[in-house]
Each structure stands twice: as structure tokens, then as C-alpha cells.
């Protein structure tokens, strides 16, 4: 005769248990075969929270082998999925958000008091009991850097082909087209191929899409700021490098259009509350180049004004722009050799580096500031669509 023992329904303690044999299924369902679209409407970074609840149960049962295996399989799964979708901004951003969230969880629930200052009493109950995962946090941090670099590469790959036409060639200011330098009017318009021509509006639309995706996926705001600082740096570098190599865009009218375009970008940053990213500051060399194109370039006083204004441009860059500067019409004079010599003499003491072009591939080091979550593990709901029925709540 079977004896059934009536057990009192216990409260969910925010842990998830699975059989060791189901680990591959867990990683497949939650990482390698998961589509970010499947989680629309769910808590942002849900995979990270679910994985932490699994980690917690392995810790709770003091099962170091299971914990090793889960963390290794998870990290390798994330590496695989981002490699497979190496051109996909959405997937890359999704795994950056989740990898960082898992990293934050491992800190927030580490038991280290430094990471617990914002925890509720309930959250403190959800801390790890047996294991110190400091070394795994380092691996997750390295993984997050790797994903961040991929995210920047993907975003730059989308934006870069748009930059030159949007920033230097497209004319959104009415009446400027008639003010192109002599001899370049026809050529510059035929140089803009219909298919490869972009207006600044298209660049900003694309950046808005990036911004929306990252925000919706719960990527940390501090990381989003760093993404835009990096993208603005690239916009500055690609535009300035082109300006330094093309005579047809070194004119008063391009300077005016460029200054207008930069103000549109600054406005875009303000509209998305991204001013504190430092992105606008990366445009400073370009702002000065636009001003240099517009300033008078004749008298010693003009030379002094240029030298005191163009602090973010090197001597070589200033001289190059002045050399390339093309008068609008027969009434505007070329920049004289004497004027350029005056500038060179005034800037001699600066000892600027000799390279002319900017390294548009330069990357600022990324940092992932600790960002604890106010969510409590036992409040997290796992949607049936994830097919994780083999996980049992503990």
C-alpha cells in the first residue's frame, strides 16, 4: 500500500532546479536557440535572471561540478550565439545586456557587502551561500567586453557607409548648392551616387533604432552612453579624414552645412538624454574644422583667431585644410602662402603629433559599472513560450 505524504506547498525561494542531463537543453532553449523577439513583453534580461536562479540552486546544493558545468556551458553558448549572429545588432545587444545582467547578479548576490548596499532583506536571502564566483565574474566581464566590441563593429558597419554623404555631401540648407566652389559644382553632384547617398536624417534614424533596441533590451544606461560616444567618435574621425583629403569639400559652404549637421547631431543627443555620454565632445575637431572653413583667412589677426580657436586640430590638419581651401567664386581669394606660414610660425611651439588622419578604428575602453536590480528572484515569471518546463521552482 502506497503512503502518500501530504507536503505543505512551500514558497518559491527564487531558485530553479534541473537534472544534470537537461543542462544542454537549458542552454539551447535559453541561449543558443532563443530569439530576442520571443521575449517581447517579458522582464528585460530574463535569461540572465533564470540562469542566476539555476546558479543559485547549484550553489545551494553545494554542487561545484554542476555549477562549473552550467557556467562553462552558458558562457560558451553565448559565445557561439554571438558568433553565429556576428552581423546582427539586435542579437548582439541582447546578449550584451544579458551577459552584463548575469555579471551584476553574481555581484549583487555574492554576499560581498560592497555589492549589497541597495539590496532589500529579501534580496539578501537570495545570496550565494557556498561558492565565491569571483573568477567567473572575471570571465563574464571579459565576455561582455568581447560582445561590446562586436556591437560597436556592427553599428559602425551600418553607419560608416552613410557618414561621408550625410555629413559632407548632402545639402539640406536651402540655396547652398549654388555656392559650391568654382569648378566643383557638377563634379560633386555627380560624385554622389543615388544608391550610396544618405542624408543626415537617415543616420539619425538609424541611431534612434540602435538606441531603442538597446533600451528595450535592458542594456545598462551607462553602456548605452559609451556606445554613442564611440559612434560619435567614428563619425567625427571619418568625416574629418575625408575633409582632409578632398579639395571639393574644403569650402565655405561645406563649412556652413557641416556646422548645421553637427548641431543636428547635438540636438539628437539632447533629445535622447545622452548629453552626459561625452559624445558631443568627440565632435570638437569637426566643429573647429567647420569654423576654420568659415573664418576669414587673410590678416595676422585672422591667423591669431584661427590659432586660438583650433585647439582640437593639429597644426598639420589646420595647414592641410588651409591648403585645400577652395574659394567659392572669383571674388573670394585663395589662402596665401604667407598666411599659412604665419599660422605655422604661431603653432610651432605646440609640438603636435605629425600624423594627419585620425584613427577611425580607435576604441575607447569600455567599463561596466555595477548596476544592481530592484527585482526579486521569487517575483520572476517564466513564460511558457520558453519551453523550460523541466526547470522546477524551489
Amino acid at each position, binding site marked *: 500500500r502506497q503512503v502518500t505524504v501530504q507536503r505543505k506547498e512551500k514558497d518559491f525561494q527564487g531558485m530553479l532546479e534541473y537534472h544534470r542531463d537537461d543542462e544542454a537543453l537549458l542552454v539551447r532553449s535559453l541561449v543558443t536557440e532563443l530569439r530576442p523577439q520571443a521575449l517581447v513583453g517579458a522582464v528585460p534580461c530574463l535569461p540572465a535572471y533564470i540562469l542566476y536562479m539555476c546558479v543559485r540552486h547549484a550553489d545551494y546544493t553545494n554542487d561545484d561540478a554542476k555549477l*562549473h558545468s552550467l557556467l562553462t556551458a552558458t*558562457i*560558451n553558448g553565448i559565445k*557561439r550565439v554571438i558568433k553565429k549572429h556576428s552581423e546582427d545588432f539586435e542579437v548582439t545587444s541582447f546578449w550584451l545586456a544579458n551577459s552584463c545582467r548575469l555579471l551584476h547578479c553574481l555581484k549583487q548576490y555574492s554576499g560581498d557587502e560592497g555589492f549589497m548596499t541597495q539590496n532589500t532583506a529579501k534580496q539578501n536571502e537570495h545570496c550565494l551561500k*557556498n561558492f565565491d564566483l569571483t573568477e567567473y565574474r572575471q570571465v563574464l566581464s571579459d565576455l561582455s567586453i568581447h560582445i561590446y566590441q562586436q556591437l560597436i563593429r556592427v553599428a559602425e558597419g551600418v553607419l560608416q557607409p552613410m557618414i561621408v554623404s550625410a555629413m559632407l555631401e548632402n545639402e539640406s540648407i536651402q540655396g547652398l548648392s549654388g555656392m559650391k566652389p568654382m569648378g566643383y559644382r557638377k563634379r560633386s553632384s555627380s560624385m554622389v551616387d543615388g544608391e550610396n547617398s544618405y542624408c543626415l536624417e537617415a543616420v539619425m534614424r538609424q541611431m534612434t533604432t540602435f538606441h531603442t533596441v538597446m533600451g528595450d533590451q535592458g542594456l545598462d544606461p551607462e553602456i548605452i552612453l559609451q556606445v554613442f560616444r564611440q559612434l560619435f567618435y567614428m563619425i567625427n574621425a571619418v568625416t574629418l579624414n575625408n575633409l582632409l583629403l578632398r579639395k571639393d569639400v574644403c569650402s565655405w559652404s561645406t563649412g556652413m552645412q557641416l556646422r548645421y549637421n553637427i548641431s543636428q547631431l547635438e540636438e539628437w543627443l539632447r533629445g535622447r538624454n545622452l548629453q552626459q555620454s561625452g559624445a558631443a565632445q568627440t565632435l570638437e575637431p569637426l566643429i573647429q574644422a567647420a569654423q576654420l572653413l568659415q573664418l576669414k583667412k587673410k590678416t595676422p589677426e585672422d591667423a591669431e583667431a584661427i590659432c586660438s580657436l583650433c585647439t582640437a586640430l593639429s597644426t598639420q590638419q589646420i595647414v592641410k585644410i588651409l591648403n585645400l581651401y577652395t574659394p567659392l567664386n572669383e571674388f573670394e581669394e585663395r589662402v596665401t602662402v604667407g598666411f599659412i606660414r604665419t599660422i605655422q610660425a604661431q603653432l610651432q611651439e605646440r609640438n603636435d603629433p605629425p600624423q594627419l588622419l585620425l584613427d577611425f578604428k580607435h576604441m575607447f575602453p569600455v567599463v561596466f559599472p555595477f548596476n544592481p536590480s530592484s527585482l526579486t528572484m521569487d517575483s520572476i515569471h517564466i513564460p511558457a513560450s520558453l519551453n523550460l518546463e523541466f526547470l522546477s521552482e524551489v
Partner: protein
Amino acid sequence: STLRPRPRVLLKAPTLAEMEEMNTSEEEDSP
């Protein structure tokens, strides 16, 4: 409830590069 501080055991982890060489239970993606 009061938390009883207990020393946690450091779980040694391989580096990110070493991890790739390890066999995980997840099967490789087909090409």
C-alpha cells in the same frame, strides 16, 4: 532573519579562451 556569514569556497574558473577548448554539454552548431 540574520545572515550567518560563512566563508565561501572560491570556484576556480578557466579563462574565456581556455573555456572554448573545454567540452561542454551543448552540442556544436552545424555549419
